[in-house]
Each structure stands twice: as structure tokens, then as C-alpha cells.
């Protein structure tokens, strides 16, 4: 009796794992900084299925940097353990002192995903402009792989179209697959079916993808490629999924 119960329970658990997309996440406490009182920004780093609000453990990232005018500053030592979606995550405080466009980038330690039989490395960035300055949001940072925004990645209304260029080793990736997910932070929305958890668009022949953002909130774009090099997992060489992830917030207009 107990055995059948256990077996059926196991079966249910195994079968009911929907096709969730993985997302590296870097979410700032404020998407733009206009006031000195709001200049202390907290950045939360995690690894999650953001629409379904299912977390995965994020071990200490290989690096966490802020880029300003092409100069990078390592912030890894400021990371403190946090909990996101009931799993280990990280948080860092950063005080913005002067006008500029601050690009925060996490390079995680490779994550072994047995279900997909590969490693996952999501280079994840988010962009916070401060005190009215907005030059520099379109600058590539020279990451292994990244999404270079073609739509200014802040100050966008919900419903806007978002465009980005997918780069891998500095080169555009024609036909790159881009997964798009909403950060269902307050559990506001439910996907009508499993297809709608993750939206998918492909880049065109020049590596540019386009997505119309349907409603307000934080949206993640993950351009996925398989690295040329393999990585060792318990003696066998395994594929490495390289993700270029960008998080940006779309906002509803205020009402008078």
C-alpha cells in the first residue's frame, strides 16, 4: 500500500514538471534613480523560473560587476546571501553617486542541469539610469554573450516593442532563439497553458529580435546558444548552454 502510494507520488512529481525556462536574474530595487534619497539600490541575484516563481539555488557567482562609461568595477565582495523563491540567492547594495547609465552584470558559476544534460551559464544584466543621464545604454560590454538593446532598456511603457541584438563572442547571431518570461513577482498572472509560460522569438538574419511587451512589470529576455567548448561532468564532456539575459521593466502610465 505504502509502496504504491510512494510510487504514484514519485510519478506525479516527475511527470508534472512543466517545460520551464531557466533565467539568470538580476533585479534592482529601483529601475531608474531620479532622487538622491532613492540612490541606494539593492540588486537581487537569483536563478529561477520567473513566470512560475520556482527557484533554483544560485551558488556564489563567478563575478558581479557594474559598468559605467566602459569601466567595470567588481562588486562580488559586496554580495550577501539572500533567499529568492525559497532558494539560496544573493543581494548587494550599491550607492549611485552621480548621473550615468549603470549596467550591472552577473556571470554565474556554471549550473549543472541533469534534466537537460548540460551546463547552464547565463550572463545576466540589467541597466539602471540615474539622475536624468541616458547616454551609453546601447554600448556592448564585451561579454562572452550579451543582448545589446536597440530599444532604450528603461523608461518604457507596457505595450512597447522591445528590440535587441544578440552577440556571441562579439558577433551577431543570426536566427538566435530568445526566450521571454515575465517575472511573476506577486503571483498576479497565471499562464493559460504551458506554452504561455515562456514566449519565444527568433532573431532575424542580422541577429536582431523583436518582442511586443503585453503588460507591465519586469521582463527577462534570454538568448540561448550552445558553446563550442564542452565542460566536464563526472568524467564526460557535456554541452554548455550560454545565455545572454537582459532584464528590463515596462511600466503603465500614471493617471491624473
Amino acid at each position, binding site marked *: 500500500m505504502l509502496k504504491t502510494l510512494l510510487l504514484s507520488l514519485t510519478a506525479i512529481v516527475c511527470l508534472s514538471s512543466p517545460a520551464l525556462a531557466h533565467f539568470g536574474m538580476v533585479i534592482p530595487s529601483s529601475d531608474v534613480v531620479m532622487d538622491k534619497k532613492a540612490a541606494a539600490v539593492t540588486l537581487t541575484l537569483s536563478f529561477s523560473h520567473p513566470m512560475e516563481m520556482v527557484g533554483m539555488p544560485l551558488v556564489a557567482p563567478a563575478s558581479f560587476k557594474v559598468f559605467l*562609461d566602459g569601466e567595470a568595477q567588481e562588486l562580488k565582495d559586496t554580495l550577501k546571501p539572500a533567499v529568492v523563491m525559497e532558494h539560496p540567492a544573493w543581494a548587494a547594495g550599491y550607492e549611485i*553617486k*552621480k*548621473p*550615468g547609465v549603470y549596467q550591472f552584470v552577473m556571470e554565474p558559476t556554471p549550473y549543472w542541469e541533469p534534466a537537460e544534460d548540460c551546463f547552464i551559464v547565463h550572463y545576466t544584466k540589467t541597466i539602471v539610469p540615474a*539622475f*536624468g*543621464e*541616458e*547616454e551609453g545604454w546601447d554600448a556592448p560590454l564585451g561579454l562572452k554573450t550579451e543582448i545589446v538593446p536597440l530599444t532604450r532598456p528603461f523608461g518604457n511603457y507596457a505595450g512597447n516593442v522591445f528590440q535587441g541584438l544578440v552577440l556571441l563572442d562579439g558577433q551577431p547571431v543570426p536566427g538566435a532563439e530568445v526566450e521571454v518570461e515575465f517575472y511573476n513577482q506577486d503571483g498576479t498572472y497565471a499562464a493559460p497553458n504551458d506554452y504561455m509560460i515562456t514566449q519565444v522569438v527568433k532573431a532575424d538574419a542580422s541577429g536582431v529580435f523583436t518582442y511586443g511587451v503585453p503588460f507591465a512589470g519586469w521582463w527577462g529576455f534570454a538568448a540561448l546558444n550552445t558553446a563550442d567548448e564542452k565542460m566536464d561532468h563526472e568524467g564526460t564532456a557535456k554541452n554548455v548552454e550560454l545565455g545572454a539575459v537582459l532584464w528590463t521593466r515596462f511600466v503603465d502610465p500614471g493617471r491624473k
Partner: protein
Amino acid sequence: MRSVLMILVFALLVSSPALAHRVNIFAYVEGGEVVVECSFSKSKRVRHGHIEVRDAVSGETLLQGTTDAEGLFRFPVPEQARTSGSGLRILLQAGEGHQNEWIVDAAEFLGAPITAAPAPSAPQSDTAAGSVSGGNVAASHVPGLTRSDVEEVVAAALDAKLAPIQRELREQGLKGPGVQEIVGGIGWIFGLIGVAAYFKSRPRV
């Protein structure tokens, strides 16, 4: 043909980016000076923009000036602002329709050194920045720290900490009665009328 060219040239000149309609102002305290940065964007600074510095509470104009070619304007922290402990409202006028303002909190400049004075020593600036915890330890290790030095340090720290409270008190003083006070006042009036009516209506014995 020529007129077409002229029109084209004119169109090019006129079509500066839309961003140009928003002007940014940002100010911070450096040493004993307030530095004001004015720009349309990083590469486009506000040249010769008109700056007016006002007392953030009373609105009194303290000084005026013009930005340089880099969009910068520096001025020493006004003595009046130091003594009153109210913040500075800095207004920028950069031509037609281009204006913006920035508030410098008093907490940012109270405790900043007076420009004429020599640069503060390390423990002093520590304390002024609010990290009082290390101040005592540092002080005991610094030779030649006189009693008046310590007093100065403590006074500066207290000024910095109390500035927001001072300002709040002042702002409260300047504000008229709030809705609560007015409603409360009306309540009192009705109440007193009621009491009077009661006594008046009571049959005299």
C-alpha cells in the same frame, strides 16, 4: 534646387534630438563647495545656463551664477545655509522651456569644511560623514588632539545629525494650520456652542 538645399540644411539644423528638451541638473558637495552639473546629456553640456540658489525653506535667493562651458557651476556653501540648517534649492534655466531644479539636503553640507580652512584631518572627516563608531578609537590614537579639536568634531557631527530635525521644525513653523487643525478647530467651536445652548435652554429655577 537651391531652395530645396536650403530647406534641407535648415531641417538638419533644427532636428536636434528630442532629448534636448529635457535638461538635467545634479549637485553634490565636495569639500566646502557645492558643485552643480548641468547637461542635456553626457556629451551635451549646458553652456552659460543661469543658476539661482535659494534657501529651500524660506525661498530666499542666496546667490546666482552661470555655468561654464562644461556645464559646471561651483560655489562655497553659503554661510546663511550653514547657520539656518535649511537645504538649498538650485534652479537651472537653460534657455526657453529648459529648466529644472535640484535640492541639496542640509545634511550633505553641514559638517563640510569651510573652504578657507585647511583640509580636515582623517578622523574629523570620518566623524563628519556620520561613522562616529570609529571616531573615538581614531581620536585616542592621534597625538596632539586638543580638547577644542574634539569639541569641534563633535559639534560638526551633531550639526549633521540634527540638521534634518532642525529643518523639519522650521518647515512646520512656516506651514499654516493643516486640515486636521482646522477640522479640530471647527469641532471646538461647535462643542462650545453646544455647551452654551445647553445652559441657555435649561429652565431657570
